């Protein structure tokens, strides 16, 4: 681990911190255009974060210390996730710190903390949101791991960096297993990031909300951190999806010129991805909470199919 490697790692993290709200803003803007509304400015999430950081925190009387710690932990988990997922380069010092399974573990840790914090005040909405989040979590997590297993079997590794290198530098061939895995990954990302059709980040309609129900009691800097963490999660998932399924263009070393060269391509891929997300959110309606198991069950089956296709048909490739 040398100094330039550390600097490159730091650069990747800082870029994630500043790009993530931009991605959220871009998705919001696309969504507004597609729904013929007046679009909010691209920088809207930054304005919101700035405003929230300025406000006082209003804590409920029953809030415990866990409630106050949770936003920081969730934020820390998401920073770590962004540090692990290769965005610009595959050769960063933190890459061996956690492989894809550990990455799923990081998301799991954040989810447990936010659900516990939701139950902390003891309002009916909080625990409702907490249990729904855990419901989505235990349905999505196996599907996500199955997707990861498929890619791991192709590259004979669970390390994200190795997977990306293998997939990016392979001969161009269409893997049917990757197609299945890609669809499953899209489903899981929608659910995990609280997007339509599983959840709607723009609603506060009591009976349908999941993520918003959990953070109802948060305010001020805590809320800002949670919102920022949510953007980071979307960013991490997008980058993970790009890394697994469209890995071309990620630099192999930790040299700054190579990383800077990778930025425009990353921005292009992210903006296309964000636009597609807005399209999905526009053409779908939010479904009932108990349709979510079917939705995520489909994702799980697709992922398992991908794995079996890999094992049965592609073992000689």
């Amino acid at each position: 681990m040398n100094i330039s490697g550390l600097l490159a790692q730091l650069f990747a993290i800082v870029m994630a911190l500043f790009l993530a709200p931009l991605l959220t803003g871009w998705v919001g803007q696309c969504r507004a255009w597609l729904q013929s509304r007046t679009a909010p400015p691209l920088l809207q999430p930054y304005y919101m974060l700035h405003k929230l950081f300025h406000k006082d925190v209003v804590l409920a009387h029953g809030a415990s210390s866990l409630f106050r710690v949770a936003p920081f932990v969730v934020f820390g988990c998401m920073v770590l996730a962004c540090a692990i997922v290769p965005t610009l380069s595959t050769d960063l010092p933190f890459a061996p710190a956690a492989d894809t399974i550990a990455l799923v573990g990081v998301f799991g840790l954040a989810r447990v903390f936010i659900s516990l914090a939701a139950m902390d005040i003891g309002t009916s909405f909080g625990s409702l949101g907490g249990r729904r989040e855990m419901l989505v979590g235990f349905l999505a997590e196996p599907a996500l791991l199955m997707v990861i297993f498929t890619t791991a079997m192709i590259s004979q590794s669970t390390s994200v960096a190795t997977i990306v290198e293998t997939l990016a530098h392979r001969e161009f061939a269409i893997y049917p297993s990757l197609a299945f895995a890609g669809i499953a990954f899209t489903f899981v990302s929608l659910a995990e990031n609280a997007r339509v059709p599983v959840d709607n980040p723009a609603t506060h309609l009591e009976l349908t909300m999941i993520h918003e129900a959990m953070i109802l009691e948060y305010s001020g800097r805590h809320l800002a951190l949670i919102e920022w963490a949510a953007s980071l999660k979307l960013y991490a998932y997008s980058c993970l999806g790009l890394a697994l399924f469209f890995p071309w263009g990620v630099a192999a070393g930790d040299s700054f010129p190579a990383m800077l060269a990778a930025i425009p391509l990353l921005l292009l891929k992210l903006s296309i991805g964000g636009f597609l997300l807005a399209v999905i959110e526009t053409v779908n309606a939010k479904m009932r909470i108990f349709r979510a198991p079917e939705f995520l069950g489909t994702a799980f089956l697709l992922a398992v199919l991908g794995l079996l296709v890999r094992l049965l048909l592609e073992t000689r490739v």
Partner: protein
Amino acid sequence: MPTLLPIDTLLIAVCAWLAVGLAGLVAPRNTRFIAKTLFPAGALVGMLVGFVSLGSLGAAPETAVLAIGLPDLPFHLRLDSLTAIFGVLLGFISVGISIFAAGYFREGEGTAPGLLCLEYHAFLASMLMVLLADDAYAFMVAWESMALASFFLVTTNHQHAEIRRAGYLYLLIAHVGAISILLSFGVMTANSGDYTFSGMRGQHLSSFWASAAYLLALFGFGAKAGLVPVHVWLPEAHPAAPSPVSAMMSGVMLKTAIYGLLRVSFDLLGSPIWWWGVVALGVGLVTALFGVLYSTVQSDMKRLLAYSSIENIGLIAVGIGLTLIFHSYRMEALAALAMTAVLYHCLAHAGFKSLLFLCTGSVLHATKERSLGKLGGLIHRMPWVAWLALAGVIASAGLPPLSGFISEWLLLQAFLFSPGLPHPWLNMIVPVAAALVVLVAALAGFAMVKFYGIIFLGQMREESLKDAHDAGWWERAGLIWLALITLCLGIFPSSVILRIDAATRQLLGTGLSERMADHGWWMLAPISVERASYQPLVFLAVIVASVLLGRQLVHHLYHGRTRRSAAWDCGYFFQGPRAQDTAEGFSQPIRRIFEPMFRLTRHFPTARDTQPYYSVKVEDHFWHWLYLPLARLVGGISGLITLLQGGRIAIYLLYSFITLILLLLVARP
């Protein structure tokens, strides 16, 4: 001067535990002496056992013969690496539990403290003897002493009928299992009359008899460990026992059954057959899924943990099955990986499950409540217990950076690199099994959030909880010790695996240490860095750094002002603690999605009820499908036997007469 070998030290420890136990009989009612002197002394002995076992990992096996028992059948004892790794577990986990127990046992709770002290230490001593035994006779004597000691501990509060019933069920299943183990040993001696384990290793059984011995052992040890369908005693006995005893049973005693299974299937029975592994894998998967689903729907905190133990034992069985499959195909590197996962999960589960059971003990003493529906908000009154329980909860949910994640990670790695098995449909089953393991792990997270959230978070559901007090210093010390074990197992996996490796190497002939040696202690990379790696310390450091840095920056750049106000009540003023989710409410999604898995009895209120109530009761299918028919069958057969017993002496004389005539006819020269 003769040197003191480690095995002698362990025997001295057995005697010391028994002596500490007997000392309790000197003053059976003197709670202060027993709690503050004898239990800490027991903890010291546990520390000795832990360190001696740790030191003898990887050393050459030592044997000893004790001239006690029957005239021609002395006790054979042996200390090898497999014994040592479970000795480490027993020693270090018992330290935490004994220290906790020093603050836990009070006067006026069932059995006199002196007697309880004897039973507790006899339990510890017999578990150590089970690990040391090197012949079937010594093993069964120790095994039965362990079952009996734990039976008396379970029935500490024997004045309650349901506790007596739970104890009876436990004893019954323990003995059914013991018979099966005895038969398994019988098969393995193969009529040679040699009951020592070294004699059994020398036998070359035909594949039929070897399979019979394996299946009998799987059933017998499975009954002690809690594999489906012989798991039913666990959720009854654990809530019945005092919490340190539940912790000991769940954390340590279940692992002695795992030890027995490993000893028989890898050590005594030489070369396994591939389908043994499939059987263990299948039973393990069913057990794990069953355990975790039932643990999510429980309303009693100790039953929830008991079902979670069933789940973890299932995961361990899955690992054993995978090891057997790889070992039978001579894929030793993968077998070593799976075996490491098994042993690691034994250690990890022992740590976090005893921690959680002890926490329920503190909650029980502080609130007198075991039902989740009457707890809540205890983090305000019991911050020590709450924060230490959080460590157990995160480990139990299999999340980084604590211990449960490491074993799960190792197990998944073993699954992931399995392609290449020479059996086509095994190749397909294994990934599906991996998918189920992941589902189990994710559901465990749900159960643990429910456990923690409902006990410690939210508003207090009952007025009386306001008087709850935090655990005393003895209890805290015990909890801190176990939480530290959980943390260290999570943060220093490489160092732990290098030690476990001695046992893996003994059973499989190969280990992970060659491939891991060159990476350094902070890096866990069981195969190679390119394939998979995990650095828990970096992991933890990044999260802690971003938490601290984030806090500092926010406070520095903006401000740290905080106001208190009432929670948002949606404009509806009449929201009390009752508006929170109950334990039943929290698990409603699980009941709905997995409805066929449960036997549900529900009562729904109608619109016109003047006093509406809702109730739901979840029962185990196995009771109704397996145990009750079996009990009826046994009852019916016993009923037939009563036909012979007329109760009149003339009839019995007639029986004797007929028997005599028959014998004369048969035994004619």
